[in-house]
């Protein structure tokens, strides 16, 4: 198991690298969903103001 994490000594580069990739993947999903929620809220407010 520790051999897996060590990755022939390259682990110190490899794992942060994957963390960055996965981090960006997750971050973009979160940001996109937040953007959608904000847009829905804005639209609701606009509709309320009109009626």
């Amino acid at each position, binding site marked *: 198991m520790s051999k897996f994490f060590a990755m*022939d000594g390259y682990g110190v580069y490899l794992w942060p690298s994957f963390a*960055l*990739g996965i981090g*960006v*993947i997750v971050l*973009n999903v979160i*940001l996109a969903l937040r953007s959608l929620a904000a*847009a829905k809220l804005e639209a609701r407010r606009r509709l309320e103001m009109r009626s």
Partner: protein
Amino acid sequence: MNWTWFHRLGSPPHVYGFAERWAPWIGGVAALAIVVALYGGLVLAPEDYQQKDAFRMVYVHAPSAWLSLMAYSTMAVAAAVGLIWRMKVAHSAAAACAPIGAWFTVAALGTGMLWGKPMWGTYWVWDPRLTSELLLLFLYIGYMGLRAAIEDPQKADKASAVFAIVGVVNVPIIKFSVNWWNSLHQEATVMRMGKPTMNGDMLWPLLLMFVGFSLYFAAVVLIRLRAELLRRERSASWVREAVA
């Protein structure tokens, strides 16, 4: 040839409905593909003769770079469609691509630096591929900055579309820089004429990652696209139903 499908693409409520229905499914398949590919690349694939386990970084670096280029190309095509056919939906799609593409350019540069340090001995070189990828990031930021700086949404759409199209010349430069110039960065092992130069056991997780990342991109663009459509269609009636 029946062009109804194309005209339907120009209808915001139709596209919104499509995006709402399909994004979760596409995202689900993408997640599955990425997880399986990760297992294949990190656990199953044998280590490389020269780079040992370090080569496994290809499974996050290459798809990120691929996505950074795909996002810009999609953005430029959507921008062109928006300008030529005056489709607001196309402009919205272009806007949706930008932040995703920018982030994955950062990911490509970052993972590349982490791979470069053990392999080349340095985090960075000013060679054509790395430099043009960095320029891609500046182009994304410029695009988003231009959009943010123009008040009128239609002018913002069109101006940023022109900029995106002007900048698309950078994409082939990035892609072919390793062929055109002496570059520290290695040449393409997958996307080239002839067969890929990678071993089968190492290749399938990479290809699956590309598929996963591409589907992921589609799913996230669809989410952002919905947000963009809502923001633009201020008074349309379909919005009422959509946000109820």
